[in-house]
């Protein structure tokens, strides 16, 4: 083992503002992506569970396609391909958020479906027999119970998106990894910077899972 390498953390501390900006962008992109994915995923899940065949088919197709495309390819395609093929030109952040959201909506749709499917059908019958509408039955009875089941796998997806958001760096969104690359090219201290952002990701993930388990404990079932 070579002994002559020494970490010089002062390079990192000198450029903390750069990393802070990157962190802010990572959080922003992940947050937007997750919000859109949560809403879109629910819609896809409802379509997937619908008895109306075209909805069902569309949802299956969606899930199979969007989960299969590597995010890297998807981002390149969305940002560089769409303007050429369809003349649709997104700014990098929009393109990145869209890719994350579209892909994660596919994962989340399956989580929603499993969660909602796990609720005993007697719950639905009891709600309907009391004269609740189908929407009220879903909103007041089914979803709150399914939410509890869905929380842990959703938490995993939050973590996954947080890390996958680093891929939007390739189209010029200066998130955490991209900022670190920039810093490395200026300082030639790759180990320090990559170690630093690895620690940041670990802390973020820790924070997220703490948040999710806090939410879990607050649910009463």
């Amino acid at each position, binding site marked *: 083992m070579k002994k002559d390498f020494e970490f010089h953390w002062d390079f990192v501390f000198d450029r903390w503002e750069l990393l802070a900006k990157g962190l802010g962008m990572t959080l922003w992109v992940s947050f937007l992506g997750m919000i859109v994915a949560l809403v879109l995923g629910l819609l896809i899940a409802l379509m997937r569970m619908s008895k109306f065949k075209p909805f069902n088919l569309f949802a299956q197709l969606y899930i199979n396609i969007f989960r299969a495309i590597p995010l890297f390819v998807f981002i390149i395609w969305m940002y560089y391909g769409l303007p050429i093929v369809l003349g649709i030109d997104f700014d990098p952040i929009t393109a990145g958020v869209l890719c994350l959201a579209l892909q994660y909506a596919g994962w989340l749709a399956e989580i929603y479906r499993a969660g909602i499917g796990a609720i005993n059908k007697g*719950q639905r019958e009891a709600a*309907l*027999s*009391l*004269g609740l509408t189908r929407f009220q039955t879903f909103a007041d009875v089914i979803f709150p119970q399914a939410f509890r089941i869905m929380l842990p796998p959703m938490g995993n997806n939050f973590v996954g998106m947080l890390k996958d958001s680093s891929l939007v760096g390739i189209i010029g969104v200066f998130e955490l990894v991209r900022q670190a690359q920039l810093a490395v090219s200026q300082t030639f201290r790759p180990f320090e910077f990559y170690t630093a952002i690895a620690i940041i990701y670990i802390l973020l993930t820790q924070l997220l899972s703490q948040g999710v388990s806090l939410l879990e404990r607050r649910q009463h*079932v």
Partner: protein
Amino acid sequence: MDEKEILCVANLNKYFGDHHVLKNINLRVRLGEHVVILGPSGSGKSTLLRCMNLLEEPQSGSLIFLGKDYGPQAPKRLWPWQSSSGDLADSRYLRTHIGMVFQQFNLFPHLNVLDNVTLALRRNKKITRPEAEEKAIKQLTSVGLANKAKAYPSQLSGGQQQRVAIARALVMGPRLMLFDEPTSALDPELVGEVLAVMKDLALGGMTMVVVTHEMGFAREVGDHLVFMDEGVIVEEGGPDILVNPNNDRTKLFIKAIL
């Protein structure tokens, strides 16, 4: 039509796929009557009960509740802007006026007892939360569980859960109560408390249709007994059919269960 008739099932047919579960069923329920449906498992008793509030949709026949048809041929209310008081059949109207109690209680586990009982009131009747809670407490008192208002279903015994489920149905002010094997999932020592609540309800004049295997309850409370087998009503009459059944299948069933 009989003036005291509250529910009339006529020529009702129900299929699950190819399986003909209910074969041309005719049944009348009069105001204040306590109908008890008996029969071996798989005979279609529960399906018939579930057709009465349209949890199962029959393929043909009519289901007349308070003079209005809710059967598959009746014009249906499909959109929120259509009046629910007019000629169109609205399954939600039917369900708010018919209470149902299930074998598995089906309390909402994420809500406490009070919220279980008040949920439908708060959503669909135009009353405030305090008013709904006052009604709920009254109803819970009648089943002896007012002190459990803040408890969650998982903290209650099966018997207590079923009594809450009864209160939850009663608080809507139903004209008719359906019971689908309400004591079958209970430990033997808890059956009594649920039957006692049901007897009280019967004595109070509630119209009831009960699917059960409790012969004691059938004899004591039932005044219109219906015996079903293989999707048909093979015999119906007063409590005396338990003692002197005419039909051979009724005889066999009663012999087996007593």
